[in-house]
């Protein structure tokens, strides 16, 4: 990307530089959101199971 060459910031090379580092971030995000995502899936099921007129 041309715009990256003109970016007034320096490139960082020693951050997330291995597959293990990336996997660690992915696992961390999965861990932080796992329970709530399960809850959302359950709430979707509840919608489908639920049986009022708007007039």
């Amino acid at each position, binding site marked *: *990307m*041309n*715009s*990256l060459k*003109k*970016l*007034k*910031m*320096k*490139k*960082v*090379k020693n*951050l*997330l*530089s*291995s*597959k293990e*580092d*990336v*996997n*660690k*971030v*992915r696992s*961390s*995000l*999965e861990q*932080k*959101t796992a329970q*709530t*995502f399960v809850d*959302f899936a359950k*709430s979707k099921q*509840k*919608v489908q199971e*639920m049986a*009022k*007129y*708007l*007039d």
Partner: protein
Amino acid sequence: MLFKLDRFQDEYIGFIVLRPNRVKAIGRTILDPEKLSFVSGHICISTYPVHILGAELTATGFPYMSQDSDVTVCAHAACWMIFRYFSQRYNRYSEKWPYEVSQLTRDVSTGRLVPSKGLTAYQVTEMFSNFGFTPEIYIRGHHQDLFDKLLYMYVESGLPVVAVLTGHRHAITIIGHLSDFNISFPGTPESSDVYLCGFIANDDNFLPYHGVRKNDPVPDGYWSRFKVEDIDTFIVPLYEKNHLSAEHIVKLSEAILTEETLGLNARSNLLQYEDIITRTFLTSSKSFKRMRRGDSVPFGIANVYCEMAMPKFIWVCEISTPDLFKDGKIAGEILFDATANPHDRMAFLSIHYPDFLLLNNRDFLTNDPKRFNIHAVDTDTDTNEIIPYHCYVNNLFEV
């Protein structure tokens, strides 16, 4: 002079069609909220050409009509308002007449469709689907504390929603919100819905642009007897490729901002997570790039955004502070791929903090580190202060 009505464009408020009904005669209506002294807030609006005696005028506003109680009831009117808004704004959606709206549900298990005895929230969802949306339905009991925040996020995204007040057997259309940026609150981190005073709704039993307050007492102005807490269900019209819903983004953005490697405290020397206000909304990448093009985003990041490969829709989580937010300024943002799988925790496109930028190449499906392009401010030579820039303004119109 009668045939030169277009000279009144600047004073033109809009139009109301009166139907030849004995009951509830107010038909399709467009009124300009800017010209109504009792309306204020951020509202979804569009423009509609009007022809009177050969002169063309433009009406600006959000569509409104009352139920006729012959064919349509409140839920039909609420749906029609949204359908008319989308059909005017996006050529993907065709216009539907009120009778056609009543026929968009084929669920006749509880009796004939006309004359209507009323609709269920499920039938509204079915009508949305048959119109061309891929709707989501949210029920307060299932989302508890998140419900009002999710409603705010969709409205902030410029998506009008049908809100159901089951206790009142009624449905209204939420088309905007009213916020007070001088409200005091316990502390940060917070999200921008903390400033919310109420939503702006079209209720077919009243004039348009009715306020639905969040708290008592009733403020001065044009407010409904309903409160936000009376809304127990809402149905949001989503585009078919918007797979990532608001509830996923709330949690994913929070997880990123507090993550040990990518979090704000880990990567920024200028801003702490404990001090921020976030504002999260959905928008098209086309509109986002158009606004950011040539904008004051520091270090040339605006051009990076314009050149980035983006899906049709993106979620944006803007990062600000209470002082900056009052001035409509932000310090950074996280962009998400709205078409990503909800289970993909690497759904972010970029992370921008005041002194840090990470781009995530979504073409990589693995943990290959080449997927990231990371830049940071050189603290030896560059500024050591936050360089604020304008928040994104496109989804709603400020009145």
